[in-house]
């Protein structure tokens, strides 16, 4: 059945191409269902081929070559099918299908309905190319195509200038990350002579000196930071909320942003050789987690909260991956995909119900009007807060466990992780309470209603997954670790300590943090708004800093964008035109002025010419005499 694997990419791609040409004619719901069918079929093919992985027979990576792409650098279109890619494929196609179904409802009435699904399918195909790639070149191809689709989908409503700007910003920031990624590929090619995973990872030990390994690791981190919105390069994700909500759910929560974590896990063999790079990844992750969590607290736009929450949770995954806990990272990736997608879709149905209102301060008391959404988002909020037995608890706890085992530096990161867990619980509860509890603060003329079943069904399924998802890899039965182990053979995976006592204490502490966060959130925000402002003033300037996201955009603007423009202006209009063009035109001017000076000699008088003539003859004679050695 392995030969069918290329279908996993081909199906959504075919869907995209088909809808591109015939989408408009097929009309509204049909094109949506075709797209969903395409990605659903891909899910089925993936599932069928995943069976050997579940039963443990897939103990070494299968390869399915499609065709040669760039032989000179060992780049070909080939699929690598091992445990890691199985998991990622199932997550991408599974969550993707649910989001496609949701989008059919959400995008109802949009004039470019079919075009939206073309892009969604194209995105699915690109993400699957990234995940199934058998070499770095194809990975980079998926990497950039995913960036393209996020550009197309963020600026889907391109008539809104802010959406277009957000799309461009996302693509450019991603490109900065890709720059780092490309330099990493250069280093890899120089040292290994090929870009295929096999050639690189098997011989990584012998070929790479620690110095190059650290360099490659750090550069991969730059690329991953660009794509997974980590600290320096995260600014594009909050703006990406301009896109339709299913886009935010699919791309900016479940799949694309996890590409960074996937790359770090895939290149585990290289990070194995470079602990320094690993610590860098962990530090970036921890810093991002805390930084984004603080900002999320101050946000009033329902989607912005979730955006910063995603950045924060990705920080967690990087923290785990950096310390060698790849299984923990991938586990959290999976569970996060479930509940974060659910949260985004939930917020989507809230926005849908509230006639595109996104400001939480104008919501409140919606649980009566949108019971299913309220319930499912409640489950997700508890899951992300890390309340047992939900998925979030198991995966976050394992990450904190991995951090705790990671030596003193690990424990510092554990503390940071714990604080972030508490903050996460707080802002998620704050969001839930502001939206669903308390007094209705709607604008007039808004009457929220529950979303149609086509939207609520995916919510329910994702809620179930959020609950069940965690059981896949509890410390009692390390299902996922056993499943993923073949993909990471030769790498000693860091995982939480075995003895139950340490596990129990850690679990208790993290649950305590979660509950504290929920309590504070509930107590503060279940009151009339006046009470909120008093609580918020308690933090003084900090709160406004959080609200404005530490004005990072303005800082970037002032330090990079504005000087860049000034440099470009100077280069174009002060250097290129006047100086270089000046030189060229100057040559023309020079010839003209010399010519006009010489014109004076042409007086038209015969006798002047006579004199010149004689002078010339005399000069020639003298030269001959002198040269001829006469005098």
């Amino acid at each position, binding site marked *: 059945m392995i030969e069918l694997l290329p279908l996993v990419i081909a199906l959504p791609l075919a869907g995209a191409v088909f809808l591109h040409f015939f989408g408009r004619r097929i009309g509204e719901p049909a094109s949506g269902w075709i797209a969903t069918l395409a990605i659903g079929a891909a899910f089925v093919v993936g599932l069928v081929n995943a069976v050997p992985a579940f039963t443990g027979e897939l103990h070494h990576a299968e390869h399915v070559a499609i065709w040669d792409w760039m032989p000179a650098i060992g780049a070909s279109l080939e699929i690598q099918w091992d445990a890691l890619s199985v998991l990622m494929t199932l997550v991408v196609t599974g969550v993707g299908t649910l989001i496609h179904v949701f989008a059919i409802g959400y995008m109802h009435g949009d004039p470019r309905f079919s075009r939206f699904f073309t892009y969604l399918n194209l995105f699915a195909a690109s993400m699957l190319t990234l995940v199934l790639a058998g070499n770095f070149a194809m990975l980079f191809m998926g990497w950039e195509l995913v960036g393209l689709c996020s550009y197309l989908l963020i600026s889907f409503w391109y008539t809104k200038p802010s959406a277009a700007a957000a799309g461009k910003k996302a693509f450019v920031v991603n490109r900065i990350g890709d720059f780092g990624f490309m330099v990493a590929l250069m280093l890899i090619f120089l040292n290994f002579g090929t870009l295929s995973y096999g050639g690189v990872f098997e011989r990584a030990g012998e070929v790479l000196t620690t110095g190059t390994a650290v360099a490659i690791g750090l550069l991969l981190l730059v690329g991953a930071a660009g794509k997974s919105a980590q600290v320096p390069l995260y600014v594009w994700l909050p703006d990406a909320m301009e896109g339709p909500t299913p886009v935010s759910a699919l791309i900016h929560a479940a799949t694309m942003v996890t590409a960074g974590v996937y790359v770090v896990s895939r290149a585990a063999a290289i990070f194995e050789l470079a602990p320094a790079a690993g610590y860098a990844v962990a530090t970036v992750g921890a810093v991002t987690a805390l930084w984004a969590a603080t900002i999320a607290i101050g946000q009033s736009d329902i989607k912005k909260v979730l955006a910063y929450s995603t950045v924060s949770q990705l920080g967690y995954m990087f923290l785990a991956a950096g310390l060698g806990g790849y299984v923990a990272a991938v586990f959290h990736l999976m569970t996060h995909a479930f509940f974060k997608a659910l949260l985004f879709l939930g917020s989507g149905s809230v926005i849908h119900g509230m006639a595109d209102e996104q400001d939480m301060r104008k919501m409140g008391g919606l649980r009566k009007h949108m019971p299913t959404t309220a319930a499912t988002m409640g489950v997700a909020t508890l899951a992300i807060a890390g309340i047992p037995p939900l998925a979030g608890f198991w995966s976050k706890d394992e990450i904190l466990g991995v951090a705790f085992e990671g030596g003193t530096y690990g424990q510092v990161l554990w503390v940071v992780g714990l604080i972030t867990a508490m903050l996460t619980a707080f802002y998620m509860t704050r969001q839930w309470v502001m939206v669903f509890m308390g007094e209705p603060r709607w604008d007039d003329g808004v009457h929220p209603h529950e979303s149609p079943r086509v939207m609520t069904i995916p919510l329910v399924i994702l809620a179930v997954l959020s609950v069940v998802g965690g059981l896949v890899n509890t410390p009692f039965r390390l299902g996922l670790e056993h499943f993923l182990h073949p993909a990471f053979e030769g790498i000693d995976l860091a995982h939480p300590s075995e003895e139950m006592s340490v596990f129990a204490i850690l679990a208790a502490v993290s649950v305590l943090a979660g509950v504290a966060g929920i309590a504070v959130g509930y107590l503060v925000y279940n009151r009339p708004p006046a009470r909120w402002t008093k609580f918020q003033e308690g933090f003084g300037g900090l709160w406004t800093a959080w609200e404005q996201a530490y004005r990072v955009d303005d800082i970037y603007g002032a330090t990079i964008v504005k000087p860049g423009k000034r440099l470009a202006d100077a280069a174009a209009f002060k250097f290129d035109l006047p100086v270089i063009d000046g030189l060229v035109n100057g040559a023309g001017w020079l010839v003209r002025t010399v010519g006009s000076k010489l014109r*004076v000699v042409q007086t038209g008088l015969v006798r002047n010419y006579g004199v010149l003539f004689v002078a010339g003859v005399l000069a020639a004679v003298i030269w001959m005499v002198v040269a001829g050695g006469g005098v």
Partner: protein
Amino acid sequence: MTVTPGWYMTLAAVLFAIGLLGILVRRNALIMFMCVELMLNAVNLTFVAAGRALGLIDGQVSVFFVLVVAAAEVVIGLAIIVAVFRQRSSASVDELSGLSG
């Protein structure tokens, strides 16, 4: 002190120089023309003196060619001068500066 061809050469050179001086100094077109004739004759003298020195008759033969050229030049030159002077009264060459750059 026998007369060597060198003497004739120097005489011709002086004549040539005088002719040249005449062209540069005088403004009257006719005088300049005569000076040209003078210079040509100086050249003829050199030809003859050289022919005599080298024992070659060709010296004298080439005199004929110089003569022909001189004659043709005079014919055309004077025709031009006559034509030009129909329009302008003075014979000075300096007025004729129509071709100035």
